[in-house]
């Protein structure tokens, strides 16, 4: 009997938390929580999201309060962190890593009053309170590919990725297409480390790629810093994704892609506040200005800078599409026919690499 009473008490206590939170909301700033997959000081993906979070809090001071958790594993632990944020009153949750969706689907079902935003992940299962944001980053990498192809002497480019998920492959493919648009003989050697953040393997892979003849190393990881540092030690050029590392590796940095997430987060949170937010998948192309072409390293010739910048401008003004047919994959199969361009559905489920990419794609 006592146990049963305790059980009821437990359940009642459980029920109380969310109710209290929503009562407190009226007139108070909107609480927004961010889940980061790695440390927010990583000179990469997580830091750029954190910069965006800080921008959001500054830009909407008084209206929004933010909280964040870093190094949240992409497992059920993410669910616990979301629950805690919600218990502390968070009404919007941004999950900034690919693997949080499973946990989010479970937590979102329990909290219909909270808005959830998952990054870069196509989801079969739809929920009324889950939105997906796809800020594309392949377009700047197309221009970076042009720079790589112009400076390479060996015509071999190295590319290190964490996981071969669709948006990463879109980046690899755009880079390769860019490179081959100015130098059709270029080959891209792809290596996968099976982790967004594994510095030891990343340094090892960099060394192996340089030894195999690659003279420009590009990477899509949580942070390109390890790869860029390892490449710099071997006097090899690097191209990064997520963060501008020109100051960190001044001698060997070529260019890359960097983020400006702040305005994107302001945009979504404003939608939530004025009630126009919808549980849809939203694609943001480079036109929106969230994914940018990073600064050029001091060794990049002026002519090449102009060429790459012009290509990027053509893309952002919709004059040119990155994935414009005919595009064949690495096995020779025609993926995008002549006269057609890849649509969002094709990009969000891209599981093939274009011809010119060699190596680690296990499939």
């Amino acid at each position, binding site marked *: 009997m006592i146990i049963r009473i305790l059980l009821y008490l437990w359940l009642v206590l459980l029920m109380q938390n969310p109710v209290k939170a929503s009562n407190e909301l009226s007139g108070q700033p909107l609480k927004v929580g961010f889940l980061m997959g790695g*440390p927010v000081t990583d000179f990469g993906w997580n830091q750029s999201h954190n910069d965006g979070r800080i921008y959001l809090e500054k830009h909407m001071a008084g209206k929004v309060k933010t909280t964040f*958790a870093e190094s949240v594993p992409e*497992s059920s632990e993410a*669910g*616990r962190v979301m629950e*805690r944020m919600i218990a502390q009153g968070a009404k919007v949750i941004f999950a900034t890593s690919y693997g949080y969706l499973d946990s989010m689907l479970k937590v979102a079902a329990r909290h219909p009053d909270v808005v959830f935003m998952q990054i870069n992940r196509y989801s*079969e299962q739809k929920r009324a309170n889950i939105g997906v944001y796809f800020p594309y980053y392949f377009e700047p990498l197309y221009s970076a590919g042009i720079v790589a192809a112009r400076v390479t002497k060996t015509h071999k480019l190295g590319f290190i990725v964490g*996981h071969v998920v669709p948006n990463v492959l879109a980046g690899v493919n755009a880079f390769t297409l860019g490179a081959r648009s100015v130098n059709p003989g270029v080959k891209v050697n792809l290596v996968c480390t*099976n982790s967004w953040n594994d510095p030891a393997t990343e340094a090892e892979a960099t060394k192996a790629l340089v030894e195999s003849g690659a003279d420009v190393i590009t990477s899509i990881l949580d942070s390109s810093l390890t790869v860029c540092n390892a490449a710099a030690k071997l006097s090899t050029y690097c191209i990064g994704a997520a963060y501008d590392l020109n100051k960190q590796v001044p001698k060997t940095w070529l260019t890359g892609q960097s983020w400006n997430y702040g305005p994107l987060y302001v945009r979504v949170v404003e939608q939530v506040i004025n009630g126009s937010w919808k549980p849809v998948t939203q694609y943001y192309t480079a036109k929106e200005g969230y994914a940018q072409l990073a600064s050029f390293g001091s060794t990049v010739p002026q002519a090449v800078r102009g060429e790459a910048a012009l290509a990027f401008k053509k893309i952002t003004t919709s004059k040119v599409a990155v994935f414009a047919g005919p595009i064949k994959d690495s096995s020779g199969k025609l993926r995008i026919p002549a006269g057609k361009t890849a649509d969002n559905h094709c990009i969000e489920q891209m599981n093939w690499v274009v011809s010119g990419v060699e190596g680690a794609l296990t499939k």
Partner: protein
Amino acid sequence: MVSGHWQKLRRAALYTLGSLTAVLIAFLITAVFLLLVGRNPIEVYIGIYQGAFGDSFSFSETLVAATPIMLCGLGVAIAQWLGMMNVGVEGQLYLGAIGATYVALNCHFTHSWQLLPLMLVGAAICGGFWSFIPAILRVTIGVSEVITTLLMNYIALLLVEFLIHGPWEDPNNVSWPQTAAFPAIAELPHLFATRVHLGIVFGIGIALLFAFLLPTTKIGFISRVIGSNPDAAEYAHYKVKRYQVWAMIISGAVAALAGFSQVSAIEGRLRSGLSPGYGYTGFLACWLARHNPIAIVIVSILIGGLLSGADSLQLSAKLPFATVNILQGMIFFCLLATEQYINKLTSKSNIESNTESPKVLRSEA
């Protein structure tokens, strides 16, 4: 015998005191770090406490985190009772997860009560097999089980990576490191509408079982003799090696239950990063509890609280995630230090009690 009892009690008291001192010192040293970065350590510790035990949700999450630690800790203890040091519980956890996953994805049943026991058996067999290898290497050709169990953790991890990137890849989400989701019937029942699951019942049940069996049965007695003095046990014609191998197998099987309950109740699929070092934390729990099964249950819940309360460090105190790693490492470090100190203190009484066992044995043989 009266003096023997007295010695035992004294040692138990010393070890308990030692564990508590170790934890206290660790908290004090961490407090210095917190002061250095300008945080009030008392507020931070209260924050951890509230994040761990402050409300029903926090406490339920503490129990969720404590479950795999408890099972792994018990696994370590079972081997330790017979003088085998099993550092490989992390790997055995993963093997358990593999065994349970194989059953969940390949055996087609209509009811949970058909599938779940089979998953449990699959996990136990795989985990037991994984600890059998170092055990047999130790008793036949004398390879240190400390090294082999530790190294086999890495093999287990790579085996999981191979499976989720290769033959067991999720067909709906190619290239993301996980298997397909389990059917709904493969989910271990949860308790009180929280994420707490039957795994904790296994943990407490196993702890109680061993707490009862060890002092009361003949096997328990022989185990204790082997653990305290294997040479004497050999002299008494006990089958020391056989006992030790079985202890390792059971140890691995218990640790495998942690993997089984994680994939079944929590993740619902096999994926990399299944365990953020539960095996190693379980090892810490076992040593903090000085291999006492009931103490392991309590210590696991406290450590589980530390892990799940760590969220509040980030969310409220705005401290980096690494803070809790520092605290945990500090506890381990201080524990080893006090261990040495206590060993020095009790070395005299140890010799006394070791000479005690053969006497008893001779009279029995």
